[in-house]
């Protein structure tokens, strides 16, 4: 059961940013009919897929203060579930998607159970190492393209039909899934469960002293986040009709963290804005120069040193208020 957002006079004001984000996303296909349709659709579809991944990371990073540096592994696991099943002739989303989610959940359960026994610097290094393990596993899958990855025969089918073959249809499918993921995450963070996760971010010792064994809650959060990111992997493979180990490089994990932080930690809609900001910035800067990372790297350092609270925080400060 999805929690309906409350209505009332304050609703639009309070929810202005997320509402605006989704309205804009819904209008993109309309704007795209005026030109550069396939470019625009594919760029924004990609933004929305990464937004799902960033949302899932925000759940544990923003709300749980768990700096997971191996999150891209789930993108790869979701993607490879599609790729490997397709290679064996199974192209139905009703088989592919549950498997993609199950594999992601299982990987999250095992690696999470090990990494969550540790804290701080250890946790970061261990999640990074497990992410790298998944990467090397993909590289060594010679039967499925190894280093070079593999091209899919086509997008997933639904009930044997090519429902998302059309880019516009696929766009709306991704938008719907993004909205569903967003509402799910919002429901989780204000639920009993989410309150335990948020409490652990503020003061883990206090939470233990009132009787919460935090490990199991954090592990459940880690599994939820990993599974949701597996969904993003499933979509990414479908969009590109291609999967490769590049989905799960550790740089990609780092980029996911950057997206969440750019948009503002622990805000959910910030993760969507951050994903858009990062990918559009990448697109824009790399149009100038192939060395765009030389601009982006120092930009990141400066954001950390001087602009706390991410882009949204900076915008809010400059604009002198804004929402919330």
């Amino acid at each position: 059961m999805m929690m309906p957002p409350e209505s009332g006079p304050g609703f639009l004001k309070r929810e202005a940013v997320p509402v605006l984000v989704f309205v804009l996303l819904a209008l993109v296909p309309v704007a795209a009919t005026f030109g550069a349709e396939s470019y625009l659709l594919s760029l924004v579809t990609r933004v929305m897929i990464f937004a799902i991944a960033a949302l899932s990371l925000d759940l544990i990073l923003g709300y749980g203060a768990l700096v997971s540096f191996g999150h891209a592994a789930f993108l790869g696991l979701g993607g490879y579930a599609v790729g490997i099943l397709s290679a064996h002739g199974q192209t139905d989303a009703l088989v592919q998607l549950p498997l993609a989610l199950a594999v992601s959940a299982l990987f999250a359960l095992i690696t999470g159970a090990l990494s969550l026994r540790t804290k701080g610097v250890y946790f970061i290094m261990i999640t990074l190492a497990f992410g790298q393990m998944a990467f090397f596993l993909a590289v060594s899958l010679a039967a499925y393209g190894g280093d070079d990855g593999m091209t899919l025969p086509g997008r997933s089918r639904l009930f044997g039909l090519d429902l998302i073959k059309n880019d516009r249809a696929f766009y709306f499918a991704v938008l719907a899934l993004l909205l569903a993921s967003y509402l799910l995450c919002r429901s989780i963070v204000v639920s009993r469960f989410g309150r335990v996760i948020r409490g652990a971010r503020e003061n883990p010792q206090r939470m233990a002293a009132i009787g919460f064994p935090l490990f199991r809650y954090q592990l459940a959060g880690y599994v939820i986040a990993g599974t949701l990111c597996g969904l993003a992997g499933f979509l990414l493979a479908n969009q590109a009709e291609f999967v490769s180990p590049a989905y799960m490089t550790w740089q990609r994990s780092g980029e996911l963290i950057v997206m969440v932080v750019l948009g503002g930690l622990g805000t959910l809609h910030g993760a969507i804005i951050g994903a858009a900001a990062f990918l559009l910035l990448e697109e824009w800067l790399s149009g100038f120069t192939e060395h765009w990372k030389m601009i982006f790297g120092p930009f990141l350092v400066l954001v950390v040193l001087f602009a706390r609270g991410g882009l949204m925080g900076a915008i809010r400060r400059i604009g002198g208020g804004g929402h919330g």
Partner: protein
Amino acid sequence: MAEPALELRDLNKAYGALTVTDHVSLALPDGEFHAIIGPNGAGKTTLIHQISGLVPSDSGSVWLGGRDVTGLSLPERVHRGLVRSFQITSILPGFSALENVALAVQAHEGSSFRFFGRAREEARLNAPAMQALEEVGLGNRASVRAGLLSHGEKRQLEIAIALAARPRVLLLDEPLAGTGPEESAVLIALMQRLRGRMTILLIEHDMEAVFALAERVSVLVYGRIIASGPPAAVRDDPEVRTAYLGEEGG
């Protein structure tokens, strides 16, 4: 004879060559208000950590109502009714005072593996939380962010959080630390009200408060209990006077 509410049997703890808890045994009958005093560095806080399960003991055991809880973790002991407060204020600063307490209620009211529904609006959690806040005198501060409360109010909030966990045995680790005279008067009155309703083990520096509140007092010096008994007897114990009270100039 009824089982003691809390019993420590030969607890030990050492950090390297430094013995912090030295063969501590203690039994608190149900409903007793017991205080542990001792000079700085006597190992009082370590002892509370051991009793509550935050720090494992090297040897010895902790019994709660006749059951051995030595092998249980901190949260598990809380669920058995052994609840503690912290010497250094430990609250969730970003949550409202009410939510701080409601979380403690939540820990004991059904499952927290619920992903839907706003926890903040659950009357089942908020009503008992509000009751605990009123009990400690914070009823009118419920919606204030805990981080913005005054120091004394934070100490009251901590006790409200502990009460919401429905303790059978309450461990209070220097609740008066850092409070001014007015704030401590409020807290002492609060502890007075709690007296007899549950078993309380208080660790405190404030001698006046201890002798006013406690039915029995134990003196901890270098990790060892050197005296234990009614306040008057302990105060007059010559060993205590030389080892501790004399040193404090009292």
